């Protein structure tokens, strides 16, 4: 019979981390021959979870800013690509092909290392000494990369409309601006919401490329925690769970938007 003096004080978090782990580890060691002690409790240590939370914050920031910048840019380039004017069409075509056929990581590195040397001397030096230049370079690289894909999706959406839409808009005397603004773009954007949503989810995953120039986003934080604690597998699992949850949230948002647009415009969502 245990005396009250030998009873451990109730401390939930410590008991949780120390009790369950040896059992799981013994199980894995005996049944799978794993020579590794998992320690999931590291995520409850302040210096590690603060890194991961900062990473989450930067990933969210990069995703929101690059999506918000690249979708309008991509729509403009997509309209230029479908324009009747040869020069506009060619310029937009070159833009899309250049940014789409070269990897996103190249663009992130390019805007960090190459872009300041392209600018006139004082500007380049000012940019290099700007304290948030890594973040800015990552945003520029990811935005231009993503906008080329958005432009291709937009062009497909615009070309999926029948020619009669343009002709009808012209025949009732709309100007070019009115034709695009009130007739073509609203229909084209509704059509491309599903692929555009997929593209934005892809953009969320692309933000992990920013770790190559040490933007402290989630992937960078993962590697950082690993190099501090040598618990790479645990923290990678946690980061993966975060990425998958973010993707699921975005997918749910896209589905919601699609249904809402369909209801408002009386279309089936499968348009």
């Amino acid at each position, binding site marked *: 019979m245990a005396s009250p003096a030998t009873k451990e004080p109730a401390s939930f978090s410590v008991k949780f981390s120390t009790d369950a782990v040896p059992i799981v580890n013994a199980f894995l060691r005996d049944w799978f*021959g*794993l*020579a*590794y002690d998992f320690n999931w409790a590291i995520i409850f240590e302040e210096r590690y979870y603060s890194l991961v939370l900062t990473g989450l914050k930067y990933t969210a920031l990069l995703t929101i800013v690059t999506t918000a910048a690249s979708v309008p840019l991509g729509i403009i380039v997509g309209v230029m690509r479908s324009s009747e004017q040869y020069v506009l069409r060619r310029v937009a075509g070159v833009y899309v*092909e*250049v940014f*789409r*056929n*070269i*990897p*996103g*990581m*190249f663009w992130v*590195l*390019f805007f960090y*290392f*190459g872009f300041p*040397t*392209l600018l006139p001397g004082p500007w380049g030096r000012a940019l290099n000494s700007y304290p948030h230049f890594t973040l800015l370079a990552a945003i520029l690289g990811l935005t231009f990369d993503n906008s080329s*894909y958005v432009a*291709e*999706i937009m*062009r*497909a959406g615009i*070309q999926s409309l029948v020619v009669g839409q343009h002709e009808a808009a012209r025949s009732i005397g709309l100007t070019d601006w009115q034709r695009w603004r009130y007739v073509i773009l609203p229909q084209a954007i509704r059509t491309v919401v*599903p*692929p555009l949503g*997929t*593209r934005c*989810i*892809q953009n969320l*995953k*692309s933000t*992990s*490329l920013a*770790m*190559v120039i040490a933007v402290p986003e989630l*992937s960078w934080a*993962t*590697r950082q925690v*690993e190099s501090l604690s040598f618990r*790479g*597998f645990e923290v*990678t*699992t946690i*980061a*993966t769970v975060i*990425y*998958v949850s973010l*993707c*699921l949230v*975005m*997918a749910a948002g896209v*589905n919601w938007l699609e249904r809402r647009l369909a209801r408002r415009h009386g279309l089936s*969502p*499968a348009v």
Partner: protein
Amino acid sequence: MVWPSLAQVRFLLVGEYPYGALGGLAMSLVIVIMAVVIGFLLGVAIGIGRLSDKSPIRRPCQLYVELIRATPLIMVLFWFYFLIPNVLGMRISLFWTVIVALITYVSAYLAEAVRAGLMAIPKGQPEAAYSIGLRPTQVLVFITLPQALKMMIPTFVGIFISLFKESPAVMLVGFSELMDAGYSIATLHLQQTLSTFFIIGAIFFVFCFWLSRFSLRLERRLNPERYRETGELPLDIEATAIAAATPRGSIGAMK
């Protein structure tokens, strides 16, 4: 602007090959081709598994595909980079770690393409095959799968291009390939930063542009019935590939 020397261009193309490790563009191509070829077999198996009637087969395949497609490539690389030496207690070379990670990653996308191809086969094909007395396995192996794979060849090329463009992520676990070679030249020789970037960009551009044009031609050659009415080429192979490989409501598509 100072252009890279011939030795540096050679470093970008083949690494230190005859005197040391293979690297540069050649290594990029080796890992991507190996991953796509081996991942293809896994992708076909998982793509068929996703269409199985039995939920113990279908569910794990579905989970695998959705999980991988919602994860950045760098996370998949980290799994194997940290998992294999620590957890299994084995030491394997970085090359095989990278290959295993790329296979895992690309097979999910290939599985989606295989599934989309199988679902696009007209119902009459398997019905006719069943009516002449073939068994389900025979219908799959001799009737539906060959047609689906043929139809999806341009999509496979699109996935190859996408993986080639995402493969620079392997430099983040310290594996040397084209982008890593360029990165080391650009950061060691600051005079040549810009010119090195131009050369790497040009290599990627030429490769991906040529492959995507090739894929468009292939698409037209293999599936003429799809373009007979309009007489036009499809807009863009990757948009087509994404549309074909992305069922509604699923998350993520490759670049």
